[in-house]
């Protein structure tokens, strides 16, 4: 990296009549800075510097500061770890964490094996693969808000509701779906799985193509049948991507907001109130001004958990792509 940096600089400076002594390079005057492309460099960095300073770096710092304050936006008072202590002793947050974990667990149960299974089948068929991929990806293309509103109608508890009509064809009595505290969360996860499976299928399809064909040949020499090949060749070869997808899914489910917010508003009886909904309620539900300190305290805690998961993800992708 530094090699090419120096290389690029030296060709540039040698083309121009500027002093190239090492001391001049260290203490550059504005003129040599300009001539050396300093201004151009800065202009190209400027858009990034602007948006990241105001909309990323400064909010990150502000998050930490605000989580230690009580603020009504005009005056802020330092309260130490009070916000953290308050939210951590709030049974509502405990409930929200459990709900989020429950969502994540169900999402793993429904949503994790299904795309893999579909991708394996799709990679085996010789014709129509493009069409199958396009069909599988279609739900991902539907705007999430539209998808949720549409499914909300499908989930009508009425016996004549769309899903209840389908259940009626096979003789199952109508279900309350999202109106019932027990069925609400699985219903949300079902929709989320439908909406997200296509993306995972495409990723698994690409990963399946990278399994070295020699391994299958070798397994056949050893007398392995189809199932043995899936179990002893395909799945071990996909280990890396499977683990990456697992972490990605956990990161995504930890931030789930749209489904509980639009389907149930966190109900019935708080059964689908997730961590993000808890943060939203604390900060924005009250139109007179929210409890920003406590809301950011929860955000910071969530950020720490997600940062650890993301770090794991980047370490794994690094290893996976270099190996």
């Amino acid at each position, binding site marked *: 990296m530094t090699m090419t940096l120096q290389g690029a600089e030296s060709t540039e400076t040698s083309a121009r009549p500027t002093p190239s002594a090492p001391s001049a390079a260290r203490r550059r005057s504005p003129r040599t800075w300009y001539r050396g492309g300093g201004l151009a460099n800065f202009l*190209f960095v400027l858009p990034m510097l602007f948006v*990241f300073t105001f909309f990323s770096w400064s*909010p990150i710092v*502000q998050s930490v500061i605000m989580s230690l304050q009580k603020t009504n936006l005009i005056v802020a008072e330092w309260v130490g770890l009070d916000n953290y202590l308050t939210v951590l002793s709030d049974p509502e947050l405990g409930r929200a964490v459990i709900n989020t974990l429950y969502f994540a667990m169900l999402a793993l149960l429904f949503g994790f094996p299904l795309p893999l299974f579909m991708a394996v089948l799709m990679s*085996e068929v010789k014709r129509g693969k493009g069409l199958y991929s396009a069909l599988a990806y*279609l739900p991902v293309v539907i705007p999430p808000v539209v998808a949720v509103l549409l499914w909300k109608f499908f989930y009508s508890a009425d016996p004549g509701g769309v899903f209840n009509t389908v259940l009626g064809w096979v003789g199952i009595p109508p279900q309350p779906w999202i109106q019932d505290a027990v069925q609400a969360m699985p219903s949300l996860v079902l929709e989320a799985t439908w909406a997200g499976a296509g993306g995972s299928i495409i990723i698994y399809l690409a990963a399946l193509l990278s399994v070295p064909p020699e391994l299958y040949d070798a397994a056949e020499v050893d007398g392995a049948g189809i199932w043995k090949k899936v179990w002893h060749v395909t799945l071990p070869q996909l280990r890396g991507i499977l683990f990456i997808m697992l972490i990605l899914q956990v990161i995504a489910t930890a931030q789930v907001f749209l489904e509980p917010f639009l389907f149930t508003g966190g109900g019935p009886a708080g059964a689908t109130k997730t961590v993000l909904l808890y943060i939203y309620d604390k900060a*924005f539900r009250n139109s007179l001004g929210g409890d920003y300190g406590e809301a950011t305290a929860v955000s910071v805690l969530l950020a720490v958990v997600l940062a650890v998961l993301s770090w794991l993800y*980047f370490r794994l992708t690094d290893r996976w792509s270099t190996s």
Partner: protein
Amino acid sequence: MTTMREKSPKSIDSLAERTIVSTSERKRTGIRFGMSLTHVFLTLTLVVAGLGPILWLAKSAVTPTQDTLQQPFALWPNGIDWENLSTAWNDIHIDQYFFNTIVIAVGAWFVQLLVATTAGYALSVLRPKYAGILNALVLATLFIPGIVLLVPLYLTIVNPPFLGEVNLLNNYLAVWLPMGANAFNILLVKRFFDGLPREVFEAAKTDGAGPFRLFWSIVLPMSKPILGVVSVFAIIAAWKDYLWPMLVLPDPAVQPLSVRLPAVQSQTELDVFLAALAIATLIPIAMFLVFQSVFLRSAGLGGAVKG
């Protein structure tokens, strides 16, 4: 990115070569039957799950409310009601929200492309002394999902620094600018630029091209594939976004479809509402059908940032 380009011809080869089931196995009757069964199963599930809801929505968008409620699967028992579409478009102002959505998407696309390409160029090609620090600071934000910054980000919009009493609520800049702070885009573009041949840059420099000329006439034209991917990501993200525009665009007149649809649901008759949902789905589906390959390639990138 280079690995991606190397991979694609290889993957086509292995596609022709073999997968789990071998050629000799495919000749066996049991397995041939199994393969046909797989085809039937895939066609059925994917048509029902992938196409089904969209077709149902398309049908119900032009069906009177009573028919949809009483016989959700009947095909127009009492005729087609095309009026739903025009009622949704004109009376509940889907036209306005549709337009707002497009303005938001185009602005977000422009800001993201501007930030990602200039930053990628600076970090990959120009490489000023401070590039290393900037790169680290940008990468660090990948570990913190934007959603946890909701509250401070909102307060930045309500009370922007250096602007005094002005706030950015109901201003599209409030949606466009934060979307530009996307480290993933910068990473993608920088990696692509890293893979471009340096000799071309050197040749251009020898011919007297300055940094702006090099950027505009050499680097950008060579980067169309990655610009396509970033564009798809940007437009889709803007079209999908719900929570953030809801917070910073409280005035219904400037809100996009995603924010307005849930809001108008309670005062809208079902058939008109379903027509509105169908209209909101139209552009993303059309874009997908036209740019299918870019979409599917972008989806593949999601799993492997290191591409």
